[in-house]
């Protein structure tokens, strides 16, 4: 029988350490909505999404009550629109984004992901139309998230797409300049994108997925931090064991919520994404975990090693707690969504270069980083190329979600609001890389033998 001590431990995690289920994301295939007429297509996707996700938000709220654990976000991911809309007779996919936005508002989810294209090897006509629609789509919609996969370990990096995305990010920033370029906070450029990621802005419902699926993203940096405070100063074995135990407990809650949501909605359970996702709240930060591990600030020498330990042990603890693990699974290091990271930037401890090094061992990549508004499109492409190369060579997902904030310069603050947080503008190495980016073509896939 459950003891008072165990009940207290669980509730303390929820009450004091911000334990929550970060997101229940319903993946919906739009493959069967394909049509040549824009109006018909938009009606079909609207109908399918609103019907499939009709009870999503209500079910999430009921589960929240039943188990007494917060479920922060309820979201939807759909088939990459460049594929689902591929046969449309139209030049712009902006109306499709508007239909997605309308559907998201109707069912009450805060984000819908999948305004996406997978162009790691090359662009189809649909892919190009989608990418060119991104700046306007993100300016005129509120809840639509967009992602573009520009590289993979199997096919190399599509440098034409990398070049194009530098330009698209700048255009997106300009289109939303009146709102601190927030459009870019909803746009991710991936290498090795995953098909079942429940987290935004990079979620989409992959083509290898079934009709409809429930994926859950867990979180809990606060819980890990508090557990590590109990073992301060002890050796690495103890440190790793503590992270594993904590990750196990956190993930079990996600597994329970996922199974119950799947049962109530009559939709199969897909995966649990074992992630430590921070929020701007105090006590819900990855950077604070580094501090408890013994670093003065995130970015101090040792940070990459600390992150590697954290990332690996979250997975080791989480894998046994869930029947299916997938998504991005690992520690996220978004700057604007983590007050400890923001502080580290402000104190000069954390630079873009150090963040790049950290992305070699973390879950994703350069995430929610505000850079000066006058950063050139070539420099942005250069940053994307570097990040994609890390992902391609190391067989991992990497991403860039970077925001050139129009009209702002290094040191100024930018406020995105809510979970997206706030961030100081970080300096960027502005030596020219245009000659490299302008070459065009593809970087061939790397050799995956000769691993020395």
């Amino acid at each position, binding site marked *: *029988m459950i003891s008072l001590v*165990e*009940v*207290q*431990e*669980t509730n303390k995690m929820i009450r004091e350490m911000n334990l929550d289920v970060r997101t229940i994301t319903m993946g919906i295939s739009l493959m069967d909505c394909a049509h040549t007429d824009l109006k018909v297509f938009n009606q079909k996707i609207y109908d399918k999404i609103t019907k499939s996700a009709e009870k999503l938000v209500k079910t999430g709220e009921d589960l929240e*009550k*039943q188990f*007494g654990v917060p479920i922060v976000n309820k979201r939807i991911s759909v088939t990459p629109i460049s594929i689902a809309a591929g046969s449309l007779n139209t030049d712009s996919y902006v109306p499709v984004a508007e239909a997605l936005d309308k559907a998201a508002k109707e069912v009450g989810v805060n984000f819908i992901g999948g305004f996406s294209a997978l162009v790691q090897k090359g662009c189809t006509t649909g892919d190009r139309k989608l990418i060119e629609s991104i700046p306007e789509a993100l300016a005129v919609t509120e809840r639509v998230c967009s992602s573009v996969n520009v590289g993979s370990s199997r096919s190399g990096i599509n440098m034409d797409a990398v070049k194009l995305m530098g330009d698209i990010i700048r255009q997106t920033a300009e289109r939303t300049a009146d709102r601190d370029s927030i459009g870019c906070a909803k746009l991710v450029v991936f290498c090795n994108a995953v098909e079942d990621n429940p987290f935004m802005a990079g979620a989409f419902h992959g083509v290898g997925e079934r009709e409809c699926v429930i994926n859950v993203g867990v979180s809990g940096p606060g819980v890990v931090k508090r557990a590590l405070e109990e073992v301060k100063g002890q050796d690495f074995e103890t440190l790793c064991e503590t992270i594993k135990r904590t990750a196990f407990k956190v993930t079990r809650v996600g597994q*329970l919520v996922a199974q119950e949501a799947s049962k109530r909605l009559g939709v199969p359970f897909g995966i649990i994404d074992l992630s430590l996702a921070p929020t701007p709240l105090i006590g819900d930060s990855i950077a604070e975990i580094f501090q408890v591990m013994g670093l003065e600030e995130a970015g101090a020498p040792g940070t990459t090693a600390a992150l590697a330990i954290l990332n690996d042990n979250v997975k080791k603890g989480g894998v046994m707690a869930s029947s299916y693990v997938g998504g991005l699974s690992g520690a996220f290091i978004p700057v604007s969504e983590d007050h400890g990271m923001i502080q580290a930037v402000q104190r000069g401890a954390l630079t873009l270069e150090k963040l790049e090094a950290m992305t070699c061992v973390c879950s994703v990549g350069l995430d929610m980083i505000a850079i000066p508004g006058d950063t050139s499109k070539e420099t942005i492409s250069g940053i994307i190329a570097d990040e994609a190369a890390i992902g391609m060579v190391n067989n991992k997902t990497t991403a860039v979600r970077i925001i050139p904030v129009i009209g702002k310069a290094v040191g100024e603050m930018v406020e995105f609001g809510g979970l997206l947080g706030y961030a100081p503008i970080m300096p960027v190495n502005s030596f020219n890389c245009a000659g490299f980016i302008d070459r065009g073509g593809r970087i061939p896939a790397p050799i995956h033998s000769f691993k020395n």
Partner: protein
Amino acid sequence: MKGIITVLGKDKVGIIAKVCTYLADRNVNILDISQTIVQDYFNMMMIVDISQAAKSTEVLVEELQQIGEEIGVEIKLQHEDIFNIMHRI
């Protein structure tokens, strides 16, 4: 279906009476009660059977929370699975 009720707050007369009366009125059976008082701080846990309850779990959760607010303590009702899954393999 079993639920776990926890009550947390400053000790005073009638906390258990209030909660138990409410549960009896809603046909919720109490299976086990344990409590501790540390420095005037009241900490109670009840295991209850809510399968025959007159109202849905969501309503019970809300009403118990309201009773807690009225008497100045925090009252939570949660499905026992969240504790089982976290602490038992």
